[in-house]
């Protein structure tokens, strides 16, 4: 089954999310921090007259390092809430060339939580991410 996916760079890995989930890709202006929110919530930002919750994908995946802000962010909607994903890079929209397949041995501790499976693309094998699990954050998964 062929599907359009958006290739992202998170912590140096090539990952993808289904293109149908992405509403738009925006440039983040100001991010207003949310005191006491979980670490992976970078803050709120405004897109047109809506507030978006900005999710720092590195932190959501438990990866080290900080995401550079200046990059473009895909905007997704989950359960009626809008999120902007803070990623290291938005690459391109490509077509998958295989079904979603598991990888023997899994994807590693941090990635396993959010992984939907692996897909082949013309850029090579790519990890397809389940955005629902991603924005739920690590704490929510652990719970």
């Amino acid at each position, binding site marked *: 089954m062929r599907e359009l996916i958006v290739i992202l760079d998170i912590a140096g890995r090539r990952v993808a999310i289904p293109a149908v989930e992405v509403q738009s890709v925006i440039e983040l202006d100001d991010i207003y921090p*949310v*005191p*006491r929110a979980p670490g992976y919530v970078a803050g709120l930002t405004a897109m*047109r007259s809506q*507030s978006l*919750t900005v999710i720092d994908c590195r932190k959501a995946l438990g990866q080290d390092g900080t995401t550079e802000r200046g990059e473009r962010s895909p905007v997704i909607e989950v359960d009626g809430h809008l999120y902007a994903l803070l990623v290291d890079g938005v690459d391109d929209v490509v077509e998958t060339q295989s079904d979603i397949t598991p990888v023997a041995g899994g994807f590693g501790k941090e990635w396993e939580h959010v992984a939907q499976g692996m897909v082949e693309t013309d850029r090579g094998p790519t990890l397809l991410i389940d955005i629902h699990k991603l924005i739920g954050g690590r704490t929510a998964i652990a719970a």
Partner: protein
Amino acid sequence: MDDLLAEFVAETREMLEAIEGELVAWEAEPSDRARLDNIFRFVHTVKGNCGFFDFPRLEKLSHAAEGVLAEVRAGRRHADSRLVSAVLAIIDRITQMTTAIEAGEELPEGSDEFLIAALEGDASDVGETVAMHSAQEEAETKTTDTGPQAPRSIRLPVELLDRVMSGVSDMVLARNDLARRLRDAGNEPTLDGPFERLSGILSDVREAITKMRMQRIEHLYNAIPRLVRDLSTELDKQVMVDFEGGDVELDREMIEMIRDPVTHLIRNAIDHGIEKPSERLKSGKREIGMLAIAARQSGNRITIVISDDGAGLNADKIGKKAVASGLVSQKELDAMPPESVTDLIFEAGLSTADEVSAVSGRGVGMDVVRANIEKIGGTITVSSNPGEGTMFFLQIPLTLSIISALTVSVDGQRFAIPQSYVEEIAHGASASVEFSRVGETDLVTFRDRRLPCLTLNNVLGVKPRAAGWDQRLVLLRLGSGDLFALAVDKIHDQEDLVIKPLAPAVMQTGTYAGTTLLDDGSPVLMLDIPTIASENGLVSDVRARPAQANITEKTAVEERGRTLMTFVGLDGKRRAIGMELVARIDQVPDEAFAVDDDRSQVVVDGNIMTLVGVGNKAANAEIPTGNVKLLRLSDSERELAYAVAELGESVVITEDLASPESDKNLEGVALIEGKPVPVVDGYRLFAKHGGAATPVEKLVCRLPEGDDWVDRMLQPLVAAAGYRVASDADETADVTIALADKAETIEASDASHVIKIHSDPDAAAANDDSVYRYDRAALENALRKARIGDRS
């Protein structure tokens, strides 16, 4: 036109439009069962609806058509073309009547009998058929005359309204952006005019959109009579329900949100409140119980009162239950005032019903009702008189999505606080505010009340700090009545904000209730005040309440001492004045002072006030340059301005003032922190500088002297009743209060009224100008009577 009627017309019209095609198809193929069913359903609905209104003709017509169609459906009659035409003629007549009802006209003249008769199987009379045709034609011409009327109301999905609403919010943001750019570009007369116009139109549209979401509370009321009828039949009770304020409008969503809680309260009222007719007769009430639901709008809040004249809440029973279920201990219960006991019904796990009934269930209930009401920013309270009934007061905001909020900031970041919690705001540097720290906890004393104080910095973990004078205070009152202060860096503005829900990840912090965009497009978080308060242990739970009540009682005892405000006068000397006289503190520039030989005045807020505190000889007074602080003193009728060099603090003194020796301007000398501080005599001050406007002379009441009880209890009460307490022995008093048990001779000669106070209730009852010393109502009544007597 009545709302319900409009809805009826709209519905009938909608159905008519929908079955128009069916009618034609049925005419062509009378045996088509599905079409027949649709038409049957239409006449059936019309008949049902007519029963609601007083339209006998319409009802008769639809009833006749329904009967015939039912026979066809049952296969007892064949739908021949004659029958079809007869049914169509009836439907045409219904259309005609509906149009007339909508236009508010009289129903079209003419008898419907022949139409109904035409339905009969044996109707073969030619005349009737002709009449039928003429009716059809009449209907047609009528339609062409008036033309197809555009429907006056349409149904819209709420989502569409929401979309329009957010579109308008977008426009407001865009407008603000444009406004900023226009300002930056400088004056552009050719643009400014149209821009103003645009702004005006936009705010009109915004208001209209907001109104679109509003619905009359009648929509909530509509379902109640049926509920009441069913319940009272089930429970063998007789209940009459009375509605008031059905035209109060509130947000559609809000109506949905309060539907369940209100239903629950009504169920409770009928199940537990209103007694069975026999019991009601026994206790001397009418056998029909009254249930009243009234809605009232006050500002941006709606008050809904649900009251019944049933048995009322049994405080003893509630108390026992609460103890039995471990909610409170017997000791705690004993310390509770009766209102607090009835409030226990809102606690989880308490049901006063002896038996679990199908109607109101058990245990789960009032706590859920309260939680639901509080969730939408409302409050609920109960008041009940045993044997007389119960009243529930619901206070809810007008709309869910637009909340009036105060914006504040810490560390440069803005937050919003729902206005409904805000009691007052104060400047941290104000003299009426005093900070203290106990352990790690901040306390603030504001107007002699000690309140817990949170700093928003600490709550949010942004640059934690102790509350201080450089901050602003927002005093917040919770639904439970608890009051606390929240210290913030800045208070900005009060705005109406459109609140949107937050993502779950942010919601789980428990600190925020929603988000919104400010006019400049920046997102702002709205603080969840009840959760913040309970997280910081500021919501007194039931266990804490009696203990707290004790504390307030204790402080009340302490406060019988006097509070003095200390200050440094313009002459550099420290003085004090009774706090009760200080209305507020102001600061005015030196040019506001006007001091001549015999006159010293100052302009405050555009009013000329008499100035005191500038020395005995006004001419010698030196008004310092720059801003001068003023104590604005008030005797509740007039104001004086007292110029001071520096403000001190407020002190509570419990000891008596030392005699002022010969200085008549002083009330006495107080010992504050080991130093003597002269206390200015406020009474003399006002007597001397009364101002030209002679105020209404207060009636004078003489109290027995040298009695502790009189000084502590009676004096404030008398003062509150509008009397001045006689101070000099030779003054004439209008009323004299005497203690009956002290065998003093009462010199009633100079007073028109004497009230005798007994410490024994029985003795008081025996004599009509006597009052038991703790019968406050009677005492106040006697004072009032004395006053009226004086006037007449």
